[in-house]
């Protein structure tokens, strides 16, 4: 009877596999660390450019980029959200737009080029992005000016429409009488970072959306996280009755939260975006969520954002997110 060689892997094989696995894992984590570090460095560079160009007085630049659907409707793009600072003396949207138009005219006269174009090219230059993979959204009151490259012609396009993007920010003073909160605040003061908060915020948001679907007897929503450092990003699809309270359509909500330490508590900011798609409930989920304009959607998204952000800040104050 012939003896065949054993088919069990030898110790050398196991050793080689372990080394390969370790190098892959350490390589990928190093890569993600590198990307995270790069974004913060580039964000700082962009903010520095805004300071040097005397733009920071009128414009608020973000701490993070968003990865969202490209305005052309094909694929995704890195998105920079720049907000025209709101003045309390301008309760009317029209007044803010007039101030924006004056700013644009003055910028064009002094620099000899369009402000949105300048920011777009600066954005792709600093972040080293392909032009087709970048979008800058300028938020002026309730308006959204999107600047991006037409992927077919290669020309730069500016598209103005009502903004559906809501931004919330709050400085939360943590109460002294909650032992859990006091501990957390102590951690913030001691380390100068908020390492404990991002996973708690992520858990809170995931739980919020899961419960919403559970209560509505819908299947679990699809949650795609994008978390690094103090940034918590979640893209949640397969929702209903969130922005449209009557549950008309399937909805996709994108929440981007940043948290950082301030003197007597923490500062939380959230960017909330959303879109919707048709579909009779009880059947399949949509593959795409292109809706974003009908039914006063921007206003309804703003209302939803207020409610969600309020619940998040309340939970943080209780120390229970």
């Amino acid at each position, binding site marked *: 009877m012939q003896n065949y060689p054993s088919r069990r892997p030898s110790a050398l094989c196991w050793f080689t596999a372990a080394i390969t696995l370790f190098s892959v894992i350490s390589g990928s984590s190093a890569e993600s660390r590198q990307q995270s570090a790069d974004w913060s460095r580039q964000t700082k560079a962009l903010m520095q450019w805004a300071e040097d160009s005397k733009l920071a007085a009128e414009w608020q630049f973000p701490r993070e980029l968003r990865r969202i659907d490209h305005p052309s*409707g094909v694929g995704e793009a890195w998105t920079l959200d720049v907000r025209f600072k709101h003045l309390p003396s301008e309760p009317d949207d029209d007044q803010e737009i007039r101030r924006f138009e004056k700013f644009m005219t003055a910028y064009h006269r002094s620099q000899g080029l369009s402000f949105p174009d300048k920011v777009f090219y600066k954005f792709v230059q600093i972040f080293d992005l392909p032009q087709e993979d970048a979008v800058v959204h300028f938020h002026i009151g309730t308006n959204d000016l999107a600047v991006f490259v037409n992927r077919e012609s290669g020309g730069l396009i500016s598209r103005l429409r009502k903004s559906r993007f809501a931004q919330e920010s709050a400085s939360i003073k943590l109460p002294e009488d909650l032992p859990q909160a006091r501990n957390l605040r102590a951690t913030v003061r001691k380390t100068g970072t908020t390492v404990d908060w991002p996973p708690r915020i992520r858990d809170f948001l995931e739980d919020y959306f899961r419960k919403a679907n559970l209560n509505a007897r819908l299947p679990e929503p699809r949650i795609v996280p994008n978390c690094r450092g103090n940034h918590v990003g979640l893209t949640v699809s397969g929702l209903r009755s969130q922005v449209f309270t009557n549950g008309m*359509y399937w909805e996709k909500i994108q929440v981007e939260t940043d948290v950082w330490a301030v003197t007597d508590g923490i500062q939380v900011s959230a960017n909330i975006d959303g879109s919707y798609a*048709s*579909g*009779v409930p009880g*059947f*399949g989920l949509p593959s*795409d969520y292109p809706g974003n304009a009908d039914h006063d959607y921007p206003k309804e998204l703003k209302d939803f954002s207020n409610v969600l952000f309020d619940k998040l800040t309340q939970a943080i104050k209780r120390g229970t997110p």
Partner: protein
Amino acid sequence: MTERGLRNLMSVFLIVSHVAILGIVLVSFMLHGLTETEFSTSLGIIAPMLATLTGLAVSYIISSKKRPGRSEHSTMLSGVYVFATLLLPLLFVIAVAGLVIMKATNYGGIAPEQFKLALTGTETIFGAYTGKLLGSLFEDARTQ
């Protein structure tokens, strides 16, 4: 099958299909299977083609208001003509109704842009043949 028999069958089929498809689109919209934009797009694509085909049938029905006498002769049609005249409009109606139902129920992950293209494609492919066949069937009746 006689020419008159096929005309009667097709005119009833076209009118019923017209109402049924518009009904499916309307019900889908009311159940939020279509957004307002998708609803208006669907109607914009479907209604003109359906109206043209149904218009032929309605014209024929108007022209044959009186019941034909026993002595009136109706020619026999070839099998292949009857087959094509029945099959193509049937496929056209099934395709349009199927697309609307697929979109409303998100079956097959059909995106709004694909839906629009598919509807237009279906109209182009089937509409031309169906229009030609039904034109030959009903136009002859009006000229007689």
